[in-house]
């Protein structure tokens, strides 16, 4: 289905089953994000897969005990995703490369224009001026729209309370550290300084500088500089990004700009949101790409 036809269908569908109207403000920051936003540059060429960042996050965020020790390397047999009990995970790629494997830490990327935020009809999410995308679990109604909307499949759900499941994800250590200017726990513990914390704008420059100075060490791209409108967490890699599990089909437009205008006119109802955003997720792929369900492709998990 062409994008326009899809949107039209949604508009008609939405209009015919209108029950109420959301008056959500689309104030998720400018296209470049907040000027003072902080971020983290992940240099996968430095990461040794020690999983210390996972352990640090577990303690900092008071998450439940892991099933196996954070020193257990057998977890690398699978490609893991962040969950409600592990806000960050490290995966291993390029296992047979002569230069050695590539490790990649995954967590919420703290988008400049977060699709999770714009998809949330109760406004549980906030993009802070420091760049963190945080949420209020007391407001969250557990509808899982953000989970569907997120281009990186990040938000997890906690079912501790059967009646009130709430979203759980990396908050850039906002409460305990970021808002006081301190680096996140995972950044601080990393032995290799694979994680560089700083102002996002500075990190973009620094990332390009690393590539320029060591062209043989890096693939010439900074993932997250432009993808979906830019993210606070950005990545450098030795190999092309699709080889280490990144979704390289995402467009540079924020997920929301595809729909911003027409969402303003259409009264939204809860029932069509999930369908709508899964559609938008697909539409955000670059045009002409043969999209055969990247969710199911091994090693291609956003």
């Amino acid at each position, binding site marked *: 289905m062409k994008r326009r036809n899809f949107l039209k269908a949604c508009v008609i569908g939405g209009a015919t089953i209108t029950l109420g109207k959301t008056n959500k403000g689309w104030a998720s920051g400018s296209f470049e994000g907040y000027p003072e936003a902080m971020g983290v540059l992940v240099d996968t060429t*430095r990461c*040794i897969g*020690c999983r*210390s960042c996972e*352990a*640090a996050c*577990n*303690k900092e965020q008071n998450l439940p*005990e*892991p*099933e*196996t*020790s*954070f*020193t*257990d390397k*057998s*977890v690398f*047999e*699978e490609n*893991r*995703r962040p*969950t*409600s*009990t*592990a806000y960050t995970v490290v995966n291993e790629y390029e296992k047979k490369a002569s230069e*050695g494997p590539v490790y990649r830490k995954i967590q919420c990327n703290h988008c400049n224009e977060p699709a999770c935020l714009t998809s949330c009809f109760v406004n549980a999410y906030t993009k802070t001026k420091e760049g963190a995308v945080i949420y209020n679990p007391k407001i969250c109604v557990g509808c899982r729209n953000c989970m569907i909307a997120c281009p990186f499949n990040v938000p*997890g*759900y906690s*079912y501790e309370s059967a009646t009130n499941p709430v979203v759980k994800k990396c908050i850039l250590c906002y409460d305990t550290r970021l808002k*006081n*200017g*301190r*680096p996140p726990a995972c*950044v*601080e513990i*990393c*032995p*290799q*300084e694979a994680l*560089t*914390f*700083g*102002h996002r704008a*500075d990190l973009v420059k*620094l990332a390009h*500088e*690393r590539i320029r*100075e060591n062209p043989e060490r890096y693939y010439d791209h900074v993932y997250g500089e432009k993808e979906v409108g830019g993210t606070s967490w950005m990545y450098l890699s030795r190999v092309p990004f699709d080889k280490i599990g990144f979704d390289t089909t995402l467009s540079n437009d924020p997920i929301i700009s595809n729909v911003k205008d027409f969402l303003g006119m259409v009264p939204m109802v809860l029932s069509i949101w999930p369908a709508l955003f899964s559609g938008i997720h697909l539409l955000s792929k670059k045009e002409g790409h043969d999209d055969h369900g990247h969710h199911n492709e091994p090693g291609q998990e956003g």
Partner: protein
Amino acid sequence: MPSFRTFILAALALSLMATQAWSTSLPDSVTLNQNGKLYKPFSFDHAKHISLIKECSDCHHHTTGTLVTDPNCVRCHANSSPTAVVSCKGCHSSTPFSPATLAEKREAKGRYHLDKIGLKGAMHENCIGCHSKRSQGPVGCQECHPRTKDGDAFYNADKQARGPAAKHAKSE
């Protein structure tokens, strides 16, 4: 200009002292990770590394030994002399991301070395980098520094691997 001459003399004296201090205090071993909480302090065998590697600048790039040869560094540092402070912590900050360090970096916009790695990163990359390149020397965490009790708790070391099926929390 007497004050200028005094300054020069003082500087000379200082640099002499520094050179002397360096030649007399070349340590055979160095205790690293002295304030470690998760891992214990350990003794680094400096003498053994000297006899194995011989070239000081392999580790102490540009501060001592053969001066810079990297074409990128040579552009500015072709004539730079060895520095008075040779130890890693002389240049690499132990708090590379503290608000103070970040603010200082922001002020120094014209500085070239804005991407200087912190102390912990510098040491680990130097050691592990060289050890893996030469396939010689320890690369695992505990091969250099055994964990403390706090470290065991931090890494949930008591939770043993239980085989692939039980490995990770259910995705959601």
